[in-house]
């Protein structure tokens, strides 16, 4: 076996891989932002004092936590068009349909985990701290700024970074519905050229570098803002 990466510069293989990398990052970024927004809404809805509504919310969150991400993508892409209203379907089909459904599925999936991470960050702070802060004369905003948030963020951010890493890896699952992200392009090029080692190596390198950056970010944060800073 001889390895030759030069073929990547010939023809349009290089362009395909680059396009795949860009698509992977686009999918990751849009699913992350949308997922975070949904997570914040979910956290807010957790405050609604209505039992049946809370059960529904729990069911939604548990569905997204206990069903594989691929299956969630399939439910959205193959199944949901059956029941979505016509106008919405037309709107989704205007642009890149596969991308839209993959983004929705990934965002909903990650939002369930993010909501849980944010909630456990908030629950970790005893309510007596808020009461104490308020009684020594801090305003609501000051309590949030100096007492609650500094502690909650230290607890919530490490799992959120970890979840972001998993989301980045999960973008590869969008391959199954034909989103042209990195893994999809790699498989397509491998089928055409049989240069398995070279294309796999390039893709692995891309995933690994992104993962290392995310892991390093998490480690730096954990060192600068340790959760048990009281010691």
């Amino acid at each position, binding site marked *: 076996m001889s390895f030759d990466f030069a073929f990547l510069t010939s023809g349009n293989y290089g362009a395909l891989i680059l396009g795949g990398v860009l698509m992977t990052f686009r999918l990751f970024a849009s699913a992350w932002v949308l997922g975070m927004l949904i997570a914040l809404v979910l956290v807010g809805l957790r405050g609604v004092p209505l039992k049946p509504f809370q059960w529904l919310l729990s069911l939604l969150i548990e569905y997204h936590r*206990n*069903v594989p991400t691929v299956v969630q993508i399939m439910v959205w892409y*193959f*199944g949901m068009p059956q029941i979505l209203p016509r106008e919405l379907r037309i709107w989704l089909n205007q642009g890149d349909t596969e991308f839209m459904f993959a983004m929705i599925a990934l965002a909903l999936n990650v939002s369930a985990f993010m909501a849980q991470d944010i909630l456990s960050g908030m629950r970790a702070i005893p309510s007596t701290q808020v009461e104490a802060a308020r009684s020594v004369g801090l305003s609501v905003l000051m309590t949030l700024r100096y007492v609650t948030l500094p502690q909650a963020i230290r607890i919530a951010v490490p799992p959120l970074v970890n979840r972001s890493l998993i989301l980045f890896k999960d973008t*590869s699952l969008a391959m199954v519905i034909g989103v042209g992200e990195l893994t999809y392009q790699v498989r397509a090029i491998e089928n055409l050229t049989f240069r398995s080692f070279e294309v796999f190596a390039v893709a692995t390198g891309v995933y690994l570098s992104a993962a290392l950056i995310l892991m390093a970010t998490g480690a730096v944060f954990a060192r600068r803002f340790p959760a048990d800073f009281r010691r």
Partner: protein
Amino acid sequence: MLDILHQYGTMFLIGSWPNGPIGGFAGTLILAGLGLGLSFPIAVVLGLARLSVFEPVRWAASAWVIVFRGIPLVMIIFWAYFIVPVLTGTTVPAFLTALCAIVFYESAFLAEIVRAGIQGLPRGQTEASRAAGLSYVQTMRYVVLPQALTNMLPSLVNQFVSTIKATSIVYVIGVNEVTFAAQQVNSIELTHALQTYLVLAGFYFAACYALSQLAQLLERRLTRRRLGLA
């Protein structure tokens, strides 16, 4: 949804067995169970290596963990699909290819659980047993690992849930498991995609939710035992 379940229930559960290879949800559980079981010994070695006093050993184990945690399982499956036949010199069934990939992938995650389990024990345990004259191997075998493994049980159950969910992607190389069965049902039915995939989701949900609850139960019992209440 119920008629899909009624008509194709056995296909979802066991695939085309006994007329063909065992598949369906049984295939998923076998793959996940074997994957986790076979990666466990590797993970114990890796976890111990991550805490080793020898720097090169520590680095090698860390590199292993970072690499296999950092790349998507699909990518590892592609690598296995390409490398395993080259190494063995023969064609390998898709099931074994998928199993290899899952063992490597899960070993990295389990290693972190093992490491956390060992680090969760008070240092005094190791120091006392070493001072009492036990060797490193004896200390690990009789003092550290039995306690660490018990404490790890909830995490292990959670990892089994993750493994079950992770195996759903192996249908891309044609392994007979429940997602593959759903694809088959969908290509027969064609018009009931939502119902078919929701039935599929239901299978995963039932198993994974029950196991997650079990993990929480174990966690609570272990905490109570540690506090000396049980």
